[in-house]
């Protein structure tokens, strides 16, 4: 066979390419505008996606004595950054991640030798003590992005934010082709092990990652019910894998949870040894979800042990009437106005817990 060593010319189909390209661009623009109009009619509004890039951008701002919020979606929704700044004298950095375990982030801050600031860590025991799976992966993905971000990813992030702030259909967790396909009502096989679906869009996000529940979710209605009744499945631990004996699985889980207590204590100790502070907070929950969480992880269990092992102060919402009286419209998070009131009432307790 001859070697391929000479220049050549590609065939170009003989078509009116300029007209075709312009027509395709025009039709695509019309279709895109129509789609934007449709999703706005459904109640969607422009807001940022909670991407690992946005998280990494905030993580990069963490200085030696920063005030940092870590944990799950409750810390993300329920804390107002303005009220915290007013009360604690420093603008906090929001690093809580929805549907995540806080431990990898805590460990990362502990291993950051520069850091001797203050950490407010939300604890939902079912999430904080997750031995692996998506809860850990969500935190690790964000950390990986922070540690390995390229210039191309940075610029893509800034361009993406500029678009997301003006275009409503750019919702990566809700309106992508993949998410739309997932909505198709196709029944699964009886024996299929399918993870429960995540809740749809119900919050807005700004460049500081301040999450606010949208009004449509705060008021009773189909969206609120959809989210509310989706939590029990998400908060029910999956059954042991078929290929691991139950006893071995439970033993492994027990060891992993013990290791998490130990590792969390070590991380807190590292931060405190450098002069930093850590406070754990149990944010409000409600309805059936509170029953599920209390049954699976009673307060006397992991929460009490975590405070004892780490020696860090803790604030449990039920201990204080001014915190316990808040209601979560969809059982897990506070509405946007309530998050401001809640933070205002939480600040004195934080001050007390963080006092020397």
């Amino acid at each position, binding site marked *: *066979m001859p*070697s*391929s*060593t*000479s*220049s*050549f*010319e*590609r*065939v*170009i*189909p*003989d*078509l*009116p*390419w*300029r007209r*075709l*390209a312009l*027509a*395709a*661009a025009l*039709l*695509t623009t019309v*279709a*895109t505008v129509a*789609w934007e109009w449709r999703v706005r009619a459904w109640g969607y509004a422009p807001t940022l996606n909670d991407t690992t890039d946005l998280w990494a951008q905030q993580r990069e701002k963490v200085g030696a004595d920063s005030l940092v919020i870590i944990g799950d979606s409750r810390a993300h929704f329920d804390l107002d950054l303005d009220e915290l700044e007013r009360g604690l004298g420093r603008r906090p950095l929001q690093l809580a991640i929805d549907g995540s375990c806080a431990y990898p982030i805590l460990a990362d801050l502990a291993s950051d030798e520069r850091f001797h600031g203050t950490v407010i860590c939300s604890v939902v025991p079912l999430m904080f003590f997750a031995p692996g799976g998506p809860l850990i992966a969500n935190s690790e993905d964000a950390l990986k992005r922070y540690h390995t971000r*390229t*210039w*191309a*990813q940075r*610029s*893509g992030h800034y*361009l*993406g934010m500029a*678009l997301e702030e003006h275009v409503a259909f*750019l919702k*990566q967790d809700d*309106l*992508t*082709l*993949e998410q*739309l*396909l*997932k909505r*198709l009502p*196709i*029944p*699964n*096989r009886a*024996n*299929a*092990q*399918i993870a429960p679906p995540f809740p749809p869009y119900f919050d807005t996000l700004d460049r500081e990652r301040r999450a606010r529940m949208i009004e449509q979710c705060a008021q009773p209605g189909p969206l609120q019910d959809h989210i509310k009744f989706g939590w029990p499945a998400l908060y029910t631990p999956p059954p042991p*894998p*078929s*290929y*691991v004996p139950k006893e071995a699985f439970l033993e492994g889980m027990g060891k992993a949870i013990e290791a998490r207590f130990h590792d969390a204590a070590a991380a807190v100790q590292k931060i405190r040894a450098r002069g930093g502070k850590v406070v754990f907070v149990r944010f409000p929950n409600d309805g059936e979800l509170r029953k599920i969480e209390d049954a699976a992880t009673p307060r006397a269990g992991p929460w009490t042990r975590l405070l004892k092992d780490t020696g860090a102060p803790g604030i449990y919402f039920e201990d204080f009437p001014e915190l316990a009286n808040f209601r979560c419209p969809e059982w897990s998070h506070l509405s946007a106005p309530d998050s401001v009131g809640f933070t205002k009432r939480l600040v004195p307790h934080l001050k007390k817990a963080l006092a020397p």
Partner: protein
Amino acid sequence: MLFNSLTFVVFFVLVTGTYWTLRSWEARKNLLLVASYIFYGAWNPPFALLLFATTTLDFWLGDRIAAVPPAARRGWLVASVTVNLSMLGFFKYGNFLLENFQWLLGRVGVAYQPPHLDIFLPIGISFYTFHSLSYTLDVYRGATQPTRSLRDFLLAVSFFPQLVAGPIVRAADFLPQCAAPPVPRPGRFGWGLLLMTLGLFEKIVLADTLVAGSADAIFSYGGPLASLDAWTGVLAFSSQIFFDFSGYSTCAIGAALCLGFELKDNFRFPYGAVGISDFWRRWHISLSTFLRDYLYIPLGGNRTGPWRAVLNLVIVMFLGGLWHGAAWTFVVWGLLHGLCLAVEHALRNLYKNIQWTMTRGGQLLLSALTYLTVCFAWVFFRAADFPTAARLIRAMIGLFPHGDAILSTREIIQVGCVTAGLLLAHWNMRDTSIEAAVARLPRSLLLTLWTLMLCAIILTQGNGHAFIYFQF
């Protein structure tokens, strides 16, 4: 910088706009060179220096090879091959070699704990090493003259459309295009844009959105799988790797066309192949022709007797497998292909006059067999280790009657539709080209398809998944 990112869209618009505004051909090439290094440096700037250093060295070595008497040429070529492959070996195979060395010593009772080298693999190193190496090899073979322009050679190796994931463009194909500005050709820019759209559609919509999730779920599952799920996962990967890699190549060809450069096809409907040798004439053509011209033929090809030809094939496919990654699973994948090529070679000699193999039905049957063989080999290519591959193969042949069902019906339907569409398209287009097929389409249908692809890309919102071949 990923093709499927907003950064690239802005980068490409700026570079292309400026490029066609400049009048001077030299200025245009300077712009492309700077843009290509920005494109590469946006991942990790220090590695752009490594790219520059190795390319410059090959430029100089190419010059030496041409300048010295024939008897001394071999030494300079060996220097080029040694430097290029050593660099590739260090970055890509350093830890792999150490781990295997440790294992070997362990077999003879020597306990050795090698240091783990914290090596960060420069993206696309396997591709640009071959781009660069092809130059010194071609100068040595007399297939091309050494270029006098370092800038042109730097551009040939680093030209951003093909820099990190191919096609492997030989300097001999690219350098002549640097000699003069591209001759205006009607439709080149528009056709380039359509190819870029098609490539992005393949990558973002077909690979990442419709099949990648199923492939990832199946290949990362630690337990026994139901046969349906295992097959779905393997078929999903067979579609994913085609659309991912072909999507990149198509984008690269389209982007190059928009800039007036012409790159050769890297895929020619490979799942319509009849036989493994036909498959390799259609899959990753730039790699298979590279290995043919620079390895198989120098080893003697099929000119040195049937047994030596078989051995040559196996050596080539062994190294081809290793080129893809530093793991024994890739080696097994390559060897499986080498073995299949050898068996096919023997069968062709034994049964060359069998009529039914020439009928359409016979060809279809052989094509289906080829596809199943390729899918079986993909298991080793994608699996993280041999236990995973073995578990998956056992599931595929039904050895786990009560295996776990982990895919949703929607995912199975998606994979089924994409795979069926892919096989149908490849079978029907195996004797034609994308250009011929597009030229035959009614304009209204072409416009509708182009618009639908653009809308689907926008709807998918560019998830920013890296291309599979970046890791190679």
